[in-house]
């Protein structure tokens, strides 16, 4: 069992990686679909008069932050698999851990996200644990921050994920 973090991974901690712009602008169809998926009837998302009075116009569900940077499942001329939260998948590959789950998630909300916004993201690895064994298998925990900004470079949110990459002990 390894108790150390390799130097090349250590060097990535607190470094900004994968600064990207979303593949499409924030759009209302996805807002309605997300509201429908949890039966959210908040009039901010369904009634423009309410949105105009309270939020100065339509906004997206705040918890939809990550929706706007997940790549299309397919796109013309793409030559490699596009993955959201690429740092997470880089770590799985680096450590040879075929499976992974997310365990903790913290989201801090700033400026509201509005239809038509074009969000930008950047990923920052914050920590990597030594090897640990859980009921799922043996692997490592890591914490990744994702910062989201709008087209005016206003911070709209920061999401912090704790992932556990692992190998099943019975595999």
């Amino acid at each position, binding site marked *: 069992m390894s108790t150390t973090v390799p130097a090349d991974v250590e060097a990535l901690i607190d470094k900004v990686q994968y600064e990207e712009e979303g593949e499409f602008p924030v759009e209302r169809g*996805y807002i309605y*679909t997300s509201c429908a998926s*949890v039966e959210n009837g*908040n009039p901010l998302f369904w009634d423009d008069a309410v949105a105009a009075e309270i939020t100065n116009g339509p906004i997206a569900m705040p*918890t939809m932050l*990550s929706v706007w940077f*997940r790549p299309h499942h397919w796109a013309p001329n793409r030559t490699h698999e596009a993955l959201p939260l690429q740092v997470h998948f880089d770590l799985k590959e680096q450590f040879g851990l075929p499976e992974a*789950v997310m365990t903790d998630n913290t989201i801090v909300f700033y*400026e509201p996200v509005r239809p038509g916004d074009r969000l930008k993201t950047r990923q920052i690895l914050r920590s990597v644990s030594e090897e640990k064994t859980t009921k799922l298998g043996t692997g490592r925990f890591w914490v990744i921050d994702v910062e989201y900004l709008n087209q005016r470079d206003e911070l709209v949110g920061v999401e912090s994920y704790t992932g556990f990459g692992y190998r099943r002990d019975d595999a």
Partner: protein
Amino acid sequence: MIATKLSLADVHAGDTLPELAYDVTATTVVLGALAARDWRPMHHDHDFAVNRNGTKDIFLNTPNQAAWFERYLTDWSGPKGRLGRMKFRMKGSVFPGDRMVLAGTVEDVTTDEGGCGWVTVLVRLTVDGDLKTDCTARIALPVTDDDNPWTRRGDQWRP
């Protein structure tokens, strides 16, 4: 004029929120994953979930759980309730066939230096009494009839 459902003065530490019970189906899981643009197979492919991930079925994904917590909190607060921060820990998965129950308790009621009113709520998502996810959320509520947390920006918004 839109009526405010809750203001800060209406809320006290120890208050409980109305429970939300929901019967999760495969459609719930798949719809939630697609709404979040999460194409990973453990959220729509039973065989992958069972034989690759070692779970008993497909399961609710992380962003969709966040959306459930948001819906639960703003059902209670009304539209002027503005989420500032949400932290949740998933201790177990939620599968089709589960009846999930969300139950919340007010932990703290404060006003910050900028005059923004904050309520901290602990929400527990359980299935058959077993805790699957706990969530601590900080949500801003109006402090007066004419206050609106959504108008706060910059130093006036400290989530």
